[in-house]
């Protein structure tokens, strides 16, 4: 059955957005990522203009992340305090990121630098997570060496002022740490036009030392607020949110997020980590192939991000 989308001005088989929503919602509930990396290009592939695909996806993520946050909160896996500090950082980072884009654009060839940096970062993070997860699953001796290295970073973090206890995560950090890291991801998210879940999750695990299950819930909580803001701004300034498409997507994604949360709860932290590492690496390969393979069309719908 086909349904006409009033803002995208196109018609789509309803099974496509519902199915896409289901898959992306599953990833969201499982790993605490928004899934825009997957959803936006797939929607474009099915004929949705790129600006509308990105904006409507934000609206859909609001539903998926509420559904996922709720599911994780029920089992006590959301650290609201940490999420709040990360959000403050993310907000500041977003503001800085927008200014940073202006500077990069003035320098010229900014897109090239940004894309290459992003691909490199994703590649490094994915590879590191993958190797580290395999090592920790095999419980190799190298654990001690890693611990020694990590203790230097831990000592530095402990030496910072404004230390506070994050009960849910069972960690103590200076408030500067989550605010700074949130800002860092916020800057990248603003520059790249992506949510940044793929960087936030590894940062929470390796630097903030949060337990994997709490990370997923907390990341979703943070994504929720980011996407509420993006949805409003996109619909207010660019008129690019297609409500009908968003409803079709969220029919699948809210359900998928719940299933993902249940499934994730049954997996061990290492299993979750290795799965996420594989997905991060797949995303890296996808971006590299997009950048290097000749596109079939050299033109696309213009306007906005």
């Amino acid at each position, binding site marked *: 059955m*086909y349904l006409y989308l009033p803002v995208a001005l196109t018609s789509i088989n309803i099974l496509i957005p519902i199915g896409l929503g289901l898959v992306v919602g599953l990833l969201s509930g499982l790993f605490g990522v928004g899934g825009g990396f997957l959803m936006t290009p797939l929607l474009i592939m099915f004929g949705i203009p790129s600006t509308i695909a990105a904006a409507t996806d934000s609206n859909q993520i609001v539903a998926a992340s509420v559904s996922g946050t709720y599911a994780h909160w029920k089992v006590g896996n959301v650290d609201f305090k940490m999420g709040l500090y990360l959000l403050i950082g993310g907000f500041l980072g977003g503001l800085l990121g927008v200014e940073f884009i202006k500077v990069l654009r003035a320098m010229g060839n900014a897109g090239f630098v940004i894309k290459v940096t992003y691909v490199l970062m994703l590649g490094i993070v994915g590879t590191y997570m993958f190797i580290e997860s395999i090592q920790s699953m095999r419980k190799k001796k190298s654990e001690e060496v890693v611990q020694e290295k990590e203790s230097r970073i831990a000592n530095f973090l402990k030496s910072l002022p404004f230390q506070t206890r994050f009960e849910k995560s069972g960690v103590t950090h200076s408030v500067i740490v989550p605010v700074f890291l949130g800002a860092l991801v916020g800057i990248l998210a603003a520059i790249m036009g992506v949510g940044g879940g793929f960087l936030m999750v590894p940062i929470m695990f390796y630097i903030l030392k949060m337990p994997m299950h709490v990370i997923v819930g907390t990341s979703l909580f943070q994504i929720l607020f980011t996407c509420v803001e993006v949805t409003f701004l996109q619909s207010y300034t660019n008129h690019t949110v297609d409500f009908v498409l968003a409803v079709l997507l969220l029919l699948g994604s*809210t359900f998928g997020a719940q299933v993902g949360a249940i499934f994730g709860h049954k997996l061990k932290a290492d299993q979750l980590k290795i799965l996420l590492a594989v997905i991060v690496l797949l995303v890296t390969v996808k971006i590299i192939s997009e950048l290097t393979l000749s596109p079939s069309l050299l033109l696309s719908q213009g306007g906005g991000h």
Partner: protein
Amino acid sequence: MKNQGLIRKAYVILQMLIVSLLLLSVDTASARLTAQANHDHITVDFFYHGSTVSVRGISDPNTDIIIKLTSEDAHQTLRKKGRVGGFLWMNVGELEIEHAPKVYSLHSTKNVEDILSKDELDKYVIGYPSLESHVNMNASDEGEKTRWFNEFVKFKESSNLYATTAGKISLTEKDGIQNYYILTQWPFQAPPGRYTVTVYAVKNKKVVETATSGVLVEQVGMVRSFADMAKNNAAVYGIISIFAALSAGFGVGLVFRKSGGAH
């Protein structure tokens, strides 16, 4: 002698007049071209998935027919992709096109280049090469313009907004009148608006007659309400979208809680 000269002059003028009238009658045929689109008002509701538009009419026998279905000329902005650093494909700027219709669908009994002169093609903007001459774009030279115009046509054809066919118009003759007919698919990608159907009767490499008809594509009901709200009440629309998403997320969460899903 003087009278003979006058008679000769009058004879020459008369001859010229007769020849002119004969030529005129050939060029204009007998002015009986008609054009009628079966769907002159296409309504777009939630279940709209494109439509079909048939164009029919009569023309003088031995004339070829060209049917052009277009929207108004518009300004369009598209993103250009190009190689950066020799190996990466990235957005490299914007293509600004002036005087290009959003929809351009051309159907003819034969190849338009075979039945019309270049001047006539350009005059009536028939065929892609003539459309290329008609549009303006931010290209550095003619070579660049042709390159990006070809990409533009490729992009438009991929969304079914531009199309050309030759030989798909059916022609039948009865009682000295030629009937033409074509059934075309109206793409759902074509935005709402007014479209013009222009039919050209062609003879001896010239357009001898034109007739026009119109097609109106209009959003109706809820589709129209949503589209209007998104444009005119953007803040309310944004807030409704967010609340709907929040409620759906919580709603599904509650359903799962009741069914004991996450425990």
